[in-house]
């Protein structure tokens, strides 16, 4: 069994509970054990860095120590957590002076950053550690003919100069892992220009207009290209897409939820009742063949 230390992030414990539920459900089917770290802090979400970069680095060095204690890789389920943790890991493993400064502070709490646990996103754990045929074998209800638009966001693989080693060398300009996953589930990936764009989440509180325009562009292009469902790996993208989606939007799911649907897992175990863009009947009507127990 593959075992990982799960860095849950803040949003999945607050506004995006469906992500944690769906991740656990899918992990269980694929024989992945996720050990949730409940003493970790927020990564700083690209905002603490704007106020006190050292403080953010210190907190993230501390976050790594919990995974190191378990001798496991640190697995993220949020794009921004992945980016911030990967950048912190990069700084701490390449800049010995800063690492010493950080460890001096951590020693007061009997902690030491060692750099033995790598930051990895769950999407690439599935891609690199789980055989693709293993995913295909779990598909009970292939999403045959369903046109699905993948939306990556940006912090999943950027900056690629640091992150390429954790993302199977994914190109930020031509990513393909979600398309591969959709194909494995029997679905039909939709190509559209905005799939690797930014949703504008990080400034949405004070620049809602920018977020609104970006989200309308993303969902509009996905629909124009025939998509009936949109999937994303990031809770921040998901929250922003759902918040700013035009009145008549397509369902916006996590790729974990889509996997769960294809695996034939029950609706509630995937947290689908939390998705604001999902109307149960409409989504079920889109699925090729829906077994009776799923409709309950």
């Amino acid at each position, binding site marked *: 069994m593959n075992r990982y230390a799960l860095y849950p992030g*803040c*949003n999945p*414990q*607050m*506004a*995006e*509970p469906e992500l944690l539920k769906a991740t656990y459900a899918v992990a269980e089917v694929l024989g992945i054990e996720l050990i949730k770290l*409940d*003493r*970790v*802090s*927020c990564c*700083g*979400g*690209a*905002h*603490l*860095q*704007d*106020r*006190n*970069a*050292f*403080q953010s680095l*210190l*907190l993230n060095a*501390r976050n790594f120590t919990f995974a190191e204690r378990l001798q496991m890789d640190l697995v993220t389920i949020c794009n921004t957590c992945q980016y911030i943790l990967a950048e912190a890991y990069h700084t701490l493993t390449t800049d010995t002076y800063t690492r010493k400064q950080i460890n001096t*502070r*951590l020693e*007061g*709490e009997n902690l030491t950053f060692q750099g033995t646990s790598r930051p990895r996103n769950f999407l690439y754990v599935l891609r690199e550690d789980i055989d693709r045929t293993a995913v295909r074998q779990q598909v009970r209800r292939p999403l045959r003919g369903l046109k699905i638009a993948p939306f990556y966001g*940006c*912090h999943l693989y*950027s*900056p*690629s100069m640091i992150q390429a080693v954790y993302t199977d060398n994914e*190109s*930020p*300009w*031509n990513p393909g892992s979600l398309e591969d996953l959709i194909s494995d589930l029997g679905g039909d990936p939709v190509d559209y*220009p905005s799939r690797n*764009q*930014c949703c*504008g*989440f*990080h*400034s949405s*509180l*004070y*620049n809602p*207009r*920018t*977020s609104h*325009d*970006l989200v309308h562009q993303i969902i509009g292009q996905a629909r124009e290209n025939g998509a009936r469902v949109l999937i994303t790996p990031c809770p921040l993208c998901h929250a922003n897409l759902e*918040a700013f989606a035009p009145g008549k939007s397509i369902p916006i799911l996590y790729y974990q939820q889509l996997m769960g649907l294809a695996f034939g897992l029950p609706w509630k175990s995937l947290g689908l*009742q*939390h*998705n*604001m863009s999902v109307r149960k009947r409409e989504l079920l009507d889109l699925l090729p063949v829906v077994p009776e127990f799923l409709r309950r």
Partner: protein
Amino acid sequence: MAPDSVRLNIFRYDAFRGESHSYDCYDLTYHQNDQLLDVLEMIKTEIDHSLSYRRSCRHGICGSCAMKVNGKPVLACSTPVRDLVREFGPKLTVDPLDQSRVVRDLICDMDMFWEKYTRSAPFLEPVTVQASSPGPAAAVSAEPLDDGKTPLIPLIFSGSTNAIDDADHCIMCGACYAACPVVPLQPDFLGPAAITRSYRFIKDVRDAHPGRLAAVGEAGSGVWECIKCLKCTEVCPKQIDPFSKLSRLHQEVLRSGSSPGGIRARHTSGFQLNLLLNGLLNEFPLAVFAMRFRMITMLRRGIRMFLHGKLVINPLRPRSRGYRQIRRLMRRSR
């Protein structure tokens, strides 16, 4: 080694003819060391003399030949075709940096970019130090002032140059500006290149230009428009990482207290306070803290979120089990 083949679809347009744009298709062979510019030169000399693009130094120094390949802004002279084929496959689409501002084929009107670059006052305005005042030890004297006193311009020390070194490497190619998704939506936004230029002088101890920080902190045009997507960092052919400069300018602007509207400053300070309280972030109290009475504009979304079990109203939830330790560490690293 035998040459490989590639298909280039190249954007063609002539503003003076006023016809609609088209794509011309060229099937070519390339060698392992060919850069994109080499292939364009081959088309221009051997197939179609009318193909137009800017280029000069061919060594990644002049910044003339930036263009988009399959949506990715690159410098044609220093991007190997084999890397592009590896990234996008053997069919490449070559576009100008900004289709809406094309003059001809791959040549764009860069006036907006240069206008914003000029607004960043991209030159040193030296600080002067009175001879009698205790200033930096190393200084050079300048022209005497009218009152007879001699001003001194402080020298920069090697430690301080590290902060601005890479920002100084900008070749003004406009790749980051073309990659930025905010620029088309917010035409007043200065963009990554101009802001990086401002950063280079803000961090220079010799510079005394008044109001640089206020300019980059301005709502509508400055650092607050950035959505932190890192596209500028991805494309910079000089690996300058404009986003990290922008992030450091956020710190400077907040420190100087010149951030506009209050909501932006309250958002980051609220973020920090939230972590101090719980170790984790709850966006609801953060939004209340940052937006105050403007929360009313989010009422509808709030109700929808509440109905879907997405709103945690208790400001003490979610709370990390290690929140006391987090608080101690945060206090010790203020």
